[in-house]
């Protein structure tokens, strides 16, 4: 299988590189006229993370379906942002079907259907005009073209023109896209990936790869030919068929050898009477082995990995003898006082217990291979050190410090790159807390956080906060009684009146507000409601519109803001109010301004 796995890997690498070259285009398709949309980056990092975490040193007998599933598991865990998560869900759904190693066009359609289902079900409030619409149209078009073509990759490629049309229509489906004059960025990203597939397919100089189901069929035919009495006849239809098979077109090395050897055998059998039966038996054995290598039945269910360490040298031979009868695929590596053990077994607990006789187990991981449970149904234990923690995810060093000082137990500053599901799982687990209240500063992180929550060991209560001010508002009410008040956390996120100030990177008209390139504009309640050339005037106008009886104006400066021009200007314009300025360090907006 090594060749096929390497080819799949190579194709993914090339598609990933292709996407990286186009990510800036996707980034620019942001609905707000801010310069730092990150859909392209999120998708690129999602794919890159999946590939980087899919190991190269896999067992020789791993099948393409299993390999794709492995990539999809790693994609989900490394997904970032909404688009990254939706893409991962789609691929996860597809690979669930493809795990059967049936790559016929009919099964690929089923895979796409399952991918769509997974993506829609996994998305909160699925909306049309997004990546989901392209996935759904992809399914329809594939089904429509399927009767006319055999090769599923060709069918996929033939879907692309239609999907381009659909992408162009996304602004008609989502008004916010129309206002911003862009197509959906996630949809565009999805299309670029399909184009990458097309490019990869067209650039291949190698002969067409034999579909796996066909390889199995050929093997079966060859085996029958060898076993049946018909072989004794000088001529048979099957024999003729096998002799005429173009072995050179079979890229699977193992099957290629089988077919080639059988062809040689058939060709020479009349001349080698003495060696005929042993040779035939050997060939039959090869076909059986080939067949069994495709059998997804797993005798030993749990892939168990441990690292054991002792103060004294460990007797590796004794260690091996202690556990070798628990399963197969035993690998013991290391030397001296530390050894790493890998074994497939049905009794992971017994293995762990026996290995602990040799020293302290400093790492353990047990994956249920049968369930393919995202590699996470594991025994890697966490010893809880705290009953409860508040975990915030925020962009900006200043906000990190502010939130920590307000009582957050841990604040992760992600800067410009939103955290992947894997990163979030690691962070949640590292808190060693039984109950965690987790809150991000961006709605685009919520989906990743939800998946991370489902994979981590703690009980995670997610507060659906969408900006840094919500986090401040939430923490103002923090008490030690999280269990009683976690719903209060959620209720408190909108307690501080605020708006954001940013600078337009392009000309556009959003929410009925015309914005020129270089203008400052105000976002409040998720909508743009003001814009203008002069920063202080725009901010003051926004304050005047929102101010009722508040007494403090607080300015939180972004990463790229220099000086205190705005705060100083507002002090002059609002002499009766307190004006305070803090450094937030956020990348997305120039300023957050609150009225309290």
């Amino acid at each position: 299988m090594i060749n096929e796995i390497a080819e799949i890997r190579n194709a993914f690498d090339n598609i990933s590189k292709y996407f990286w070259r186009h990510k800036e285009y996707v980034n620019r398709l942001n609905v707000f006229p801010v310069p730092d949309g990150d859909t392209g980056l999120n998708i690129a990092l999602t794919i890159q993370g999946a590939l980087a975490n899919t190991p190269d040193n896999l067992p020789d007998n791993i099948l393409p379906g299993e390999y794709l599933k492995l990539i999809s598991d790693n994609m989900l865990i490394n997904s970032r942002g909404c688009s990254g998560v939706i893409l991962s869900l789609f691929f996860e759904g597809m690979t669930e079907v493809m795990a059967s190693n049936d790559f016929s066009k009919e099964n690929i359609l089923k895979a796409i259907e399952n991918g769509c289902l997974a993506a829609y079900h996994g998305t909160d409030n699925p909306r049309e005009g997004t990546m989901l619409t392209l996935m759904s149209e992809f399914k329809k078009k594939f089904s429509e073209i399927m009767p006319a073509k055999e090769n599923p990759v060709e069918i996929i490629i033939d879907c692309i023109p239609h999907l381009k049309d659909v992408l162009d229509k996304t602004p008609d489906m989502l008004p916010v896209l129309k206002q911003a004059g862009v197509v959906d960025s996630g949809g565009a990203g999805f299309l670029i990936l399909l184009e990458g597939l097309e490019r990869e397919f067209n650039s291949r100089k190698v002969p067409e790869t034999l579909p796996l189901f066909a390889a199995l069929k050929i093997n079966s035919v060859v085996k029958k030919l060898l076993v049946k009495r018909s072989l004794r006849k000088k001529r048979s239809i099957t024999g003729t068929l096998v002799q005429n098979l173009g072995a050179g077109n079979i890229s699977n090395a193992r099957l290629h050898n089988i077919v080639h050897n059988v062809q040689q055998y058939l060709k020479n059998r009349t001349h080698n009477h003495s060696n005929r039966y042993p040779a035939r038996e050997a060939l039959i054995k090869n076909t059986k082995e080939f067949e069994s290598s495709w059998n997804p039945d797993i005798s030993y269910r749990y892939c168990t990995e441990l690292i054991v360490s002792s103060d004294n040298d460990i007797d590796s031979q004794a260690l091996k003898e202690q556990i070798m009868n628990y399963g197969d695929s035993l690998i013991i590596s290391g030397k001296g006082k530390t050894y790493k053990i890998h074994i497939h077994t049905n009794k992971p607990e017994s293995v762990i217990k026996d290995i602990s006789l040799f020293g302290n187990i400093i790492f353990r991981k047990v994956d249920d291979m049968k369930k393919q449970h995202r590699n996470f149904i594991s025994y890697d234990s966490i010893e809880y050190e705290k009953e409860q923690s508040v975990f915030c995810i925020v962009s900006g060093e200043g906000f990190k410090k502010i939130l920590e000082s307000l009582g957050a137990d841990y604040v992760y500053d992600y800067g410009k790159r939103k955290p992947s599901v894997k990163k979030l799982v690691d962070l949640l687990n590292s808190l060693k807390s039984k109950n965690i209240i987790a809150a991000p500063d961006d709605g685009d992180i919520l989906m990743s956080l939800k998946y991370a929550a489902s994979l981590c060991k703690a009980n995670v209560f997610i507060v659906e906060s969408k900006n840094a001010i919500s986090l401040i508002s939430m923490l103002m009410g923090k008490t030690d009684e999280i269990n009683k008040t976690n719903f209060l956390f959620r209720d408190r996120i909108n307690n501080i009146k605020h708006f954001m100030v940013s600078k337009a990177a392009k000309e556009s008209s959003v929410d009925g507000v015309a914005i020129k390139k270089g203008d400052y504009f105000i976002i409040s309640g998720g909508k743009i409601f003001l814009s203008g050339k002069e920063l202080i005037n725009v901010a003051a106008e926004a304050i005047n519109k929102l101010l009722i009886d508040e007494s403090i104006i607080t300015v939180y400066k972004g990463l790229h803001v220099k000086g205190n021009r705005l705060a100083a200007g507002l002090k002059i314009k609002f002499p009766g109010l307190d004006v305070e300025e803090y450094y937030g360090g956020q990348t997305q907006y120039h300023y957050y301004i609150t009225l309290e």
Partner: protein
Amino acid sequence: MIISADNLGIGIDQVPYQRFEYLKYPVLIGEKEYRESETYSASWLLERFVKEKITAKSSSLSRAEMTDLIEKNVNNYDLIIQVVMGSNMSAATFNIAEEVKEKFKDLIPVINIDSRQVVGGIGAVLLRLIDIIKTTDDDETIKKQAGELVTNTFSYYVTPDLNYLNRGGRIGKAKALLGSVLRVLPVIGLMGDDPEGEIVPLGQGRTYKQVNSLIINSIREKMNENKAEDITVAIISGDESNRDAIDSLKKEFESSIPCKKLVYGKLHLVEAIYMGPGGYGISVCMK
């Protein structure tokens, strides 16, 4: 006879009981000791905090003064009840009260009530206790009902500068609110149903309006939790220089919480040490 001290959150003249005596906490500024008087009041100390950046601390009640007071009255009464500040807030004072009780055990029964409270909270327990002893003179009944009062009394304080409480070593779990990067108004509390009797953080806000709302919401939650239909007695007191904020709390409380008796109290010298400039609070009893 009831004995307490000058940390009730109300003026002594606001205690509606003839047979009431009180002791004054010693307040130390540098080497010099002060006691509450017309000259040395809470506003005097708070002003010096702001203008002169002085530090002050208190010490426990004097054993001798407590002994003298009881000795003086031992033949006049058949029961003495001492309402003492929370034993977790001042273990020394409570221990002194217990020692004195032991000393007089053959002469007169003394009931020491650990109020689990400070400013205002002790006053609330005291005012309700006065109501109780009007209905019974049975020692055991008084003890039992006083215990119920204590677990149903809750105090909420706004302390603009928690360092005053911190310096006095009484900050407890509210330490979590120290060191905010933002300028905030911490809200802390003493919950009578908390056997640890420690100061706890209740939240924080940026404006007095926010923290007053937070306090009112916290009281409402507590009432729901305790299935209390109304507040039997409430005491509001604080730094008079922050009158607007105190009045605003009083107004919001009156308009949103059913209360049988609201007392607008006053701070004493010893209370000002911990409340700090601008500090105020409300104590409520739900029994």
